């Protein structure tokens, strides 16, 4: 089956996994193998080389931001430069959302990184190319979270007072 993007992988320079999203079916075992293989290759590549590697008949496009490598696996015949920009697009959206995003934001908020990715890509295809639209729907979701939090803290205050 044709997917534009087979999986998304975020790995740190130390080889630690920060986010994985699989659009094509892979078993848990295959996933570990893919991550091991790819991080072995990508982390050892020099800085001036291509941002693409050919891998098992697919192509993996990666880009390094500070200490984090963003990788996307695509079909061999796809447009690599475009995918490089999809990665950058994602990073820019993360940057807007977190405000100067750093790796630590993604470590502790990986689920938020997932929510954002879900607004950007769906079933391995780019569904939205406007940063603003993505930001808008994410903030709408977050407002709900805020509302829930306020509710929770007011309840906790009541309980705290009751138990005094």
């Amino acid at each position, binding site marked *: *089956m044709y997917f*534009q993007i087979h999986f998304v992988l975020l790995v740190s320079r*130390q080889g*630690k*996994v920060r986010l994985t*999203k699989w659009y094509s*079916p892979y078993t*848990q075992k295959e996933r570990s193998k893919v*991550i091991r293989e790819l991080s072995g290759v990508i982390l050892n590549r020099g800085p*001036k*080389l*291509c*941002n693409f590697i*050919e*891998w098992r008949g697919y192509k993996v496009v990666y880009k*390094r931001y*500070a*200490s984090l490598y963003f990788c996307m696996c695509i079909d061999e015949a796809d*447009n690599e*430069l*475009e995918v*490089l920009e999809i990665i*950058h*697009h994602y*990073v*820019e959206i993360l940057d*807007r959302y977190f*405000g*100067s*995003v750093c*790796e630590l*934001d993604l*470590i*502790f908020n*990986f*689920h938020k990184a*997932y*929510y954002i990715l879900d607004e950007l890509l*769906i*079933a391995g*295809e*780019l*569904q939205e*190319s*406007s*940063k*603003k*639209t993505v*930001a808008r*729907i994410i903030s*709408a*979701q977050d407002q709900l*979270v805020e509302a*829930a939090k306020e509710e*929770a803290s007011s*309840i*906790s205050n009541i*309980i*705290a007072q009751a*138990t005094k």
Partner: protein
Amino acid sequence: MEQLKTIGRELAMGSQGGFGQSKEFLDLVKSIGESRSKAEEDRIVLSEIDILKRKLLEPDVPKRKMKEYIIRLVYIEMLGHDASFGYIHAVKMTHDDNLLLKRTGYLAVTLFLDEDHDLIILIVNTIQKDLRSDNYLVVCAALNAVCRLINEETIPAVLPQVVDLLNHGKEAVRKKAIMALHRFHRKSPSSVSHLVSNFRRKLCDSDPGVMGATLCPLFDLISEDVASYKDLVSSFVGILKQVTERKLPKSYDYHQMPAPFIQIKLLKIMALLSSGDKSASEMMYMVLGDLFRKCDSSTNIGNAILYECIRCISCIIPSPKLLEDAAEAISKFLKSDSHNLKYMGIDGLGRLIKISSDIAEQHQLAVIDCLEDPDDTLKRKTFELLYKMTKSSNVEVIVDRMIDYMISINDNHYKTEIASRCVELAEQFAPSNQWFIQIMNKVFEHAGDLVNIKVAHNLMRLIAEGFGEDDDDADNKLRLSAVESYLQIISEPKLPSLFLQVISWVLGEYGTADGKYSASYISGKLCDVADAYSSDETVKGYAVSALMKIYAFEIASGRKVDVLPECQSLIEELLASHSTDLQQRAYELQALLSLDARTVESILPLDASCEDIEVDKDLSFLNGYIQQAIESGAQPYVSERERSGGMFETTDYHSQDHHEVTSHALRFEAYELPKPSVPSQPSAALVPVPEPSYYSEPHQPISTSSSVSERESSEIKLRLDGVKQKWGRPSYQSSTSASSSTPPQAANGTSTHSDGGGVASSSSSKPRSSYESKKPEIDPEKQRLAASLFGGSSSSSRSDRKSSSGGHKPAKGTANKPLATVPKESPITVPDLLDFDEPTGTSDVAATDPFKELEGLMESSRQDGGGSTDVMGLYSTDASAPVKTTTSVDSLLSELSDSSRGTYHQSQTTKGPNSKEALEKDALVRQMGVNPTSQNPTLFKDLLG
């Protein structure tokens, strides 16, 4: 009271801390982050799994707590461990009414489950309900899950609702509904075939995001059936034109490019639609020409569009002007310092070379530079280009290079690919037989077992059949040279199994044919092989069969056969082998040695591997024998089918089975009330009935011996072809065994390898003197390589050029007319199709949107940095430099100011809230005990400079 207290604490915990998770979870993440080895990480995760298993089983886990557990499960699974024990809790969470929890549940199930998981059935109902929700965020969350989890069986359950959502008020919902339908189309085209018109309609959606999403399914539909979408060409051209003229809202701009991702998608679609279609291609000339002019080749995204244009041009029927544009873009790519662009350039060259073969010539040096580049990716792409431009004049240089590279790499996947390419090129363009065999030897020697077994069979067939011409002398020379080269190689250690099979077979067939080598010499070598590779049964089998042939030829020619002592011991060893195949061969060999010359000659005639063997499938030659047996009182044979109860029940059983299959599908409506049960099928019908394949098996082994395809897959099947047939006459049996060692059957066709030789000499490479005079400073080594790669084409391509320019002339004439009509047409057709009014609200929103300002900053700073694409890269490369976190933002900014001093002040003011945020974040992190100065200071570094 105590319980209330804990709830209170938990609730407070939930809202405390900027990251919104409990201390426990933060500790987990932290300890994983600080673990120094994979083993340590695994240990932490395993203990976390234990904790979670326990906690999830506790009764009445508060919901907020459960949400966190689920996120922890996601984390565990992300790190590559199995969290399946908690899947059911994630599924339950999707049922929750609270959107926050529901969203977490959906996130977790989309990450945990794939569409074939058993738990999906528990979610379908919730999805159905959520798709009807009033809250569009709930609908969005459900649609995300639909895209991931709904499989062919469950599509009907949600399809009507998804279709309704195509007209939802929120564009985010419409977009996701489109993507969901797209997904359904991929899963099961028939389920949505009646809805395809919706995609066309949604192309005119008022929201550009929805339109952009619609391009995904349309791309798929068009690639399946180009003809029925030809009418859309003008619409796509119109849309692309509007996009390039910046008619879309500003928010779709990306690095000053108007909606580049939509442009690329459109170009991909148009390439499909106009492939080989002159009139459709002509409609695109103008907009493509515009793109070449407008695209900013200093940004990556601009180059991405340029590259897509090149791809598009390589698919359509281009005008000469467009070809020029594309060639120019390619030469820009190749001249660039960026490896990425060089790579794209080489790729583009490979595409255009099909249309105009002389285009590569101008870039020969760039190509050779890429070939010698240390970057493997670039090198491989260049090999791909060379593969595409191989001719008989340059095949030797290219294949030699490929083989050198093949030897140097370890990546098995690519090794296989490049080996098969070498073989293909060698077969197609080989200048001489000798060379061909040499190349094949190298490929087998170094890529050995990675080579497809067919290649080995092809090689054996080639050696057996010769080159198809009736020139026995040449064929014999070929065989002799093969035998000689194999005898040289055979003693090298650790040859691949496949290669040894070829060697053994050839030595067996032709080792003694020329009389140059004695039977004992060859048989000694074969024994050595069987001895050295004693664990490889296939090789041993080949070796024994080869020995048998050698001895058979000796016996048939009337010479006395001395079986070497090592051969004798080999036979004795194999007589007791665990492998029945080897045992069989050994017994046959032993039997053959005691036969007289005439019999042996009819069993194994000399050089008869290409003769067809007639197979009598009905075993009619046994009729007399059977007749005799019946006459003397034997029972006639009753077939197994008849024995087990007759045809009637068999068919009955199968039709019933079939019926069950068709009605087996999930139902999502309520079941009707149970009816009084009908007495079930008589149990006799369920008595196991042999499957059809089973009772036809007795014929099988006989037919295999003659079928080529069977033999190719014989590695995995039982090797029945060498086994003695129970009812066969001796002569028949042994001819089977002869063919068992004769891999590919001569399919009485003539060989395809006859081209090459003659052509090669006529167009042998001529160094290009004009070229050398142009660039005198170039390394002569490279020049020579260039000449040998490209030189050969100079003579032929010149004539090509003549013919191609002749071919283009009429194209030019006709091209002008549509060029004039296109602009006239588009204003008429386009506006009613797409009406992207510039939303008037956007500017107001932008003024209050902090993100907008940030974007402006990012863009302006990039602009000031000389427009170079590497500003981002600049900061990301020196990640190793420890950055003090308290000042991380400032220091980065000061770095930034080096390249863009002018924007520094402005950026500080706009970044103000952000740096404050960063400080807060930092303080928080410190509270949690993550120390930035500890092992990984780069954690705090901004990903974007």
